[in-house]
């Protein structure tokens, strides 16, 4: 992580020094962050109707928000909504009033260098842009005996935010404090831990 920050800082300095001459609004450095233990409970489940407020996240501030408009991703249980497109029809979901989108890419977080050329999907009636279910969207459910939910390694979500910025996200864990080998019976859920890289310069697709 330290290495990453140094690299980013170095790139940022290098970039800044190049563009200083012809641009009077210097580019902001790319942000590499980790969000830990984003708590996203849901009610119901286990055969009952699912409900409860989504926990919304805004890349611009890098924090959870209660705003009805300034959010990009929203979490509830294993479901992830994006602020773009239309409501899916599930109970208590937030209104989609932005134009955010997501492209699901296979690779490591570092290997995705740009959002150029990707096609972005949005939530729609009866369909989340990040599909729900095991081995389908972002996680695998192991079933008995371990019952562990594991983020599928190599699934990277490239996000176009409501403000028109780009971010790339890798979900690390669904369990509190992101244990390396979670115990579905002992470790608490749903606590999202994810790494992301965010380009704060509007419209810039590069992550380098």
């Amino acid at each position, binding site marked *: 992580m330290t290495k990453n920050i140094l690299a980013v800082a170095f790139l940022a300095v290098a970039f800044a020094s190049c563009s200083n001459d012809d641009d009077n609004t210097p580019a902001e450095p790319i942000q590499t962050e980790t969000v830990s233990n984003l708590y996203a409970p849901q009610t119901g489940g286990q055969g009952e109707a699912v409900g409860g407020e989504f926990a919304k996240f805004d890349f611009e501030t890098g924090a959870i928000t209660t705003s009805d408009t300034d959010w990009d991703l929203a979490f509830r249980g294993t479901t992830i909504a994006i602020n773009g497109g239309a409501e899916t029809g599930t109970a208590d979901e937030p209104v989609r009033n932005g134009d955010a989108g997501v492209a699901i890419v296979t690779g490591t977080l570092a290997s995705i260098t740009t959002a150029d050329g990707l096609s972005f999907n949005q939530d729609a009636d009866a369909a989340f842009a990040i599909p729900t279910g095991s081995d389908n969207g972002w996680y695998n459910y*192991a079933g008995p005996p371990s019952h562990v939910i594991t983020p599928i390694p190599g699934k990277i979500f490239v996000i176009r935010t409501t403000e028109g910025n780009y971010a790339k996200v890798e979900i690390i864990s669904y369990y509190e404090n992101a244990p390396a080998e979670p115990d579905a019976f002992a470790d608490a859920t749903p606590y999202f831990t994810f790494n992301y890289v965010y380009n704060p310069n509007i419209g810039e697709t590069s992550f380098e």
Partner: protein
Amino acid sequence: MRFQLTTCLLLIGSYFTIAQTRVENPTDSILAQQLDEVIVTATRTERQLSSLPLPVTLVGKKQIIKSGSVRLNEILNEQTGIITVADESGFQGVQIQGIASDYILILIDGVPLVGRSAGNFDLSRLTVGNIKQIEVVKGPSSSLYGSEALGGVINIITEKPKTEALTGNASYRIGSFSQQDINLDVKQAFKKFRYGFFANRFSSNGYDLNEDVEGNTVNPFTNYTLNGRLYYDFKDNLSLFASGRFYDQNQDAGFTLDSIQYQGDTKEQEWNAHTRLDHKWTPNLTMAYELYYTNYIATELLADPISTAILSDSDFNQKLFRPEVRGSYTFSSENNTETTGFQNGTLTAGIGLQLDELDRTYFDKTVNFSSQYAYAQYDFDPIENLNVIAGARFDNHSEYNNQFSPKLALRYQLNDNLSIKGSIGYGFKAPDFRQLYFDFTNSAVGYTILGYNVALDKLKELEEQDQILNVVVTEDDLSKPLGAESSIGYNLGFNLKHGRGNTEVNFFRNDFKNLIDTRIIARKTNGQNVFSYVNFDEIYTTGFEINSAYKLSNDLNISAGYQLLYAFDKQKKQDIKDNQVFVRDPNNGQTIALSQTDYFGLVNRSRHNANFKIYYDIPTAKTNLNIRLLYRSKYAQFDTNGNGLIDNYDSSFIDDFVTVNAAASKTFYNNFTLQVGANNLLDYTDNNIPTMPGIQGYLKLNYQF
């Protein structure tokens, strides 16, 4: 009274005569001399084991008795390349050449047994008390046996009475965990009439591997096996065989969940009725007319004794009826001097009808399958020292595509000591009832599994109930019939006699396609999925097996066996090559593309399996001592890191382990045998192998009459 006394005296008299003339064979060699044994499974005709062009494992009665095995799984697990293992469903089955239990056919006297749990046939259902021998043919045998015979066929052969005197044995065995095994076996043969009766009671108090988890690992159970067999010779060339078998098991199924002590039982019952008329029309033509019926019933009822709330109530009732007619004709030239050439061979052919029926919980109604089949096989020596068996079978089935299963096998005797053999065959497994008719919704989690044939209708029902968010497959996807799973198996090996020893080597490869797995077909409004079955997986298993037996002296036999196995999913292998599979390194949290060398292969497969056995007879003391070492290298039980396959980063590996079994028996007063033994002498246990308790000692007394 006088008559009875006379009869008694006569019986006793003849008994002594027999006892005195009985040839003692204390130097029985079970390992090195097997090659002269005759087996029937590979060709459906009697064939000398050593002359067969197919890989076969034969386990004889003496080996079973000396090893102190009581259930079929125990003795088979000691054979090279045959492994018993529990899959992710928790049920135990047998694996041959890396092929799972779903694809291995189990027969008794040539007729199939039914009743599987999640595809696994539980071999511990079968007692070995009245077995003459166990024949295992490895590789696809669908050319003779049809569905399920992809990985191999296990055929249990019962003993035919031979002597006019009443013979048999009664035994009692007690072991750890209050395990008790009681056997009574009686046989007698008159001029035209023979009969055999067998009864077994087996019980255990169960055991607990993990004190931290409430309840037992294995609950107490008791089971009974009864088998009666009749043989009647109408004429020299016409004889009848009839066998009835009954199995009944009751196991305590009580357990504690959320501090409620649920009580109940799991019951299993099995009936088999098998009759066969053997007719020798001419010295060259024999025919068999066979009728077979079997019924397997399993029920479970679990309830809270206080509130009487029912936790689980399931039924499973499967029936199979199978008439078959088969014949064997040996072509021979007029002067009988020539035995080679295409014109001098044995043609074996049969036709049959199979009716299957299953009624179970989570099925709307009783479902029926029917199939008709015909097979033919020609066994001949085109030139001296070369044996060829070519055969094929055609199955016409009510629920899936017709299957044509050919097979070709060759064996060439290079010299007195060396022979090579090779075979190629096709195997298939029909989609089972569950894959076609299941209708199950998990009440705790809320997901639904639908059998392929009912998926469309059930989906519509769920849609009408507003339970479906969206359907992710097209109607077209669910309209084409589900295909049979199939494989092509290749075996190539040689047999080498060297002095007092014998070594067999066999290389194998099995390519599977159309394997049936579940996939998501729709999403539910409760956030869960609807699953159904689809043909998509392609896997292969490959490796080799080597068995070496050496007769150090007349009384000392040693043997060693080893199997190397690679078992992979072809698609996943390609995905890894294409850098599409990733893994999160648990040490530094970095995600990296999985390297090809880190793909471990399919679940429950060990790369290495080995065994080493010593059987030692001391004829002067009428004693036999033996020790058997079994080694299994590490294997993984399930994916733990979310990438959908087993790689070296997964944490569900069971480390390699050795089990040691030993037994000693001594015969005294001619008729009594006392056996002392222990399985798993090293006391190896793992909480993740619930089917293996620690060290199990036992003491057995057998009376032979």
